């Protein structure tokens, strides 16, 4: 469905539920209550799904290194809410949020973490290698930076076939240090590829802060020199990220080439694993406090009427519990599965 049709539909919805329209909170973001509810539901779904992963983890049922996005959901949600179902995302090993936000099958994600045959990769990928091609979630990779050019290739194919698809390519601040990132910026700009580059800048690569890795933090300026327009969302505001994504998606669909969003966000949990790590000494709890205070899940939740929010919360809990049940009750792969899919037939 083209973006303008979707927007018209949304306006119609606004009229029918006009009495609930709260202009003050959504002003400037072209998002009606339905849209806001949708964004909240997704933020909340990712938060709760990952909190459940963290709860389950000590039981050793999930024997897969998990890189949680708790606290930094807004990038995935803001971008994916601006995309159409036929648009595509390319994420990273910290990819649960991208996968869920793009509509990836939640049951299959939990089953994958459990190593079950019903998992999105039949238990042969694990948390770092989620995929759902039916929902246009490209496979994620545990080797940093490797999926950036793959997203470009998918965009190139869409462009050659005159499909008005957009590819959102997600990566962390650490990934921007790989040569492949700059090579990809240049190529995408040169070929005017329909790509939205999404830098999820959480300020750390594992335990190394950005000041130990970058001489300056003027990333958007650097990217602009390639001829790519940029938007910095310094507070990780999901609605601002969404606005920028709408703008760049429209631009890309017009054939005008890529856009770049730097979303500054904050990872609340440890780099890998379920816990908090403020006792480890490499970052302070003080640094975390402002992010905790502006938590977008809460912030957007508060914009909703409480009965609507409560209903969405109940739905989310049910979705997550159903996914956990699905994973728990699914079977492990049979031994023959080891040898399947080595080569395509």
């Amino acid at each position, binding site marked *: 469905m083209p973006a303008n049709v979707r927007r018209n539909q949304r306006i119609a919805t606004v009229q029918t539920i006009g009495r609930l329209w709260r202009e003050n909170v959504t002003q400037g973001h072209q998002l009606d209550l339905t849209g806001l509810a949708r964004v909240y539901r997704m933020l909340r779904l990712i938060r709760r799904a990952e909190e459940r992963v963290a709860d389950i*983890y000590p039981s*050793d049922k999930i*024997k*897969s*290194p*998990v890189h949680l996005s708790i606290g930094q959901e807004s990038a995935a949600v803001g971008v994916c809410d601006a995309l159409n179902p036929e648009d595509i995302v390319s994420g990273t090993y910290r990819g649960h949020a991208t996968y869920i936000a793009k509509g990836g099958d939640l049951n299959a994600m939990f089953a994958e973490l459990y*190593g*079950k045959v019903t*998992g999105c990769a039949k*238990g*042969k*990928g*694990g*948390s*770092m*290698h989620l995929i759902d091609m039916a929902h246009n979630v490209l496979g994620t*990779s*545990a*080797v*940093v*930076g490797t999926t950036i050019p793959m997203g470009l290739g998918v965009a190139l194919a869409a462009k050659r076939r005159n499909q008005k698809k957009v590819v959102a390519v997600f990566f962390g601040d*650490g*990934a921007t*240090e*790989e*040569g492949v990132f700059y090579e990809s910026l240049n190529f995408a700009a040169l070929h005017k590829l329909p790509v939205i580059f999404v830098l999820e800048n959480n300020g750390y*690569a*594992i*335990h*190394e802060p950005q000041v*130990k*890795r*970058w001489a300056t933090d003027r990333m958007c300026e650097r990217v602009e020199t390639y001829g790519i327009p940029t938007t910095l969302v310094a507070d990780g505001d999901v609605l601002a990220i969404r606005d920028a994504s709408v703008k760049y998606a429209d631009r890309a669909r017009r054939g005008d080439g890529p856009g770049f969003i730097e979303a500054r966000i904050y990872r609340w949990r440890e780099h*890998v*694993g*379920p816990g908090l790590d403020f006792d*480890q*000494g*490499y970052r302070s709890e003080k640094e975390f406090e402002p992010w905790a205070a502006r938590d977008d899940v809460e912030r957007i939740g508060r914009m909703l009427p409480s009965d609507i929010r409560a209903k969405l919360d109940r739905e989310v809990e049910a979705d997550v519990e159903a996914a956990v049940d699905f994973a728990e009750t699914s079977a*492990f*792969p049979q*031994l023959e*599965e*080891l*040898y399947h899919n*080595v080569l395509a037939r």
Partner: protein
Amino acid sequence: MSSPANPDKPQSGRVLKYVDALREAVAQEMRLDPSVFVFGLDVDDHKGIQGSTKGLVDEFGPDRVFTTPLSEDAMTGVAIGAAVAGMRPIHVHIRMDFLMLSMNQLVNIAAKSHYMYGGQVTVPMVVRGIIGKSWGQGAQHSQGLYSFFMHVPGLKVVAPSNAFDAKGCMIQAIRDNNPVIFVEHRLLYNTDAYVPEEVYTVPFGKARVLTKGNDITVVGISNMVQEALRAADLAREVGIHAEVIDPISLSPLDIDTIADSVARTGRLLVIDNDWVMCGAGSEIAASIAERLSGTQKIQIQRMGFAPTSCPPTPELEAAFYPNPRTIGEMMHKMVRPTDARWSPDEARTKLAYQLQFRGPF
């Protein structure tokens, strides 16, 4: 400099873990030689590459122990440049898989500079790569890609399997005037052995015979040495005496020691920590076949990873690797081909280091 024939027989010193032996070797060399420095992603954080670089930055400071941007390709080139300029860099990669980003610099520049420039320069650098295993490391955090490097003249490749050799090989690698790919296995980090306190080297190109036996020669690589030793213990209980050999260094490779053993046992079983196709184990098997097949009848078998990517789901992951049970079964089948199949007691094939290891990483 002592070089005991068997690291299980104490000479001096104390029992030390593999991870601590590595760190001690680097620290001792850094004290002796100011040109040695350690760099690579996360070498200076509080976890210190799973303990192996922990504390080095406190002793030697951030000029000699420093993290880098995520730029393996460029950083490998930096290491080569520093080495050409007379320093002795140790470039650390927490997983060997990430070495693929360094491949161009290692193969096209590091390996070739000394030769291609007619001996005018040397590239004395150490590249550490750790092989991961278990807890869902999966396809991209578990590869043992050392055979790629063995293929290329100008590189040395070592894969010590115990704490004693880890220390001695590390010191040797740092002192070597060539690029050395230093292969470590994550699950060996907690294994211990007697390790002398003093500085010593373990020479490259000399294999170590770990157990004596006349029935079959078993060559293990990296942590597969440990698994082969356990299999040999279990097989001894049914009267099969295996000679377990650890090549330690894969390039140069000590074929003589292995060939002497196979000439006596008539049987070679190689257990690789990698895929069989074109692997180190295949190289060993081919070299032994070349050396001995014209003069005597020998049996050769190779074992290694299943010919698939590594799956994280536990049962498939277990089936992906050789283990003391499958190794023991193969030994029995080779030595007593006409007997009924024998399998060691499953409970006793589990290795402590496998049981101890718990994720997430």
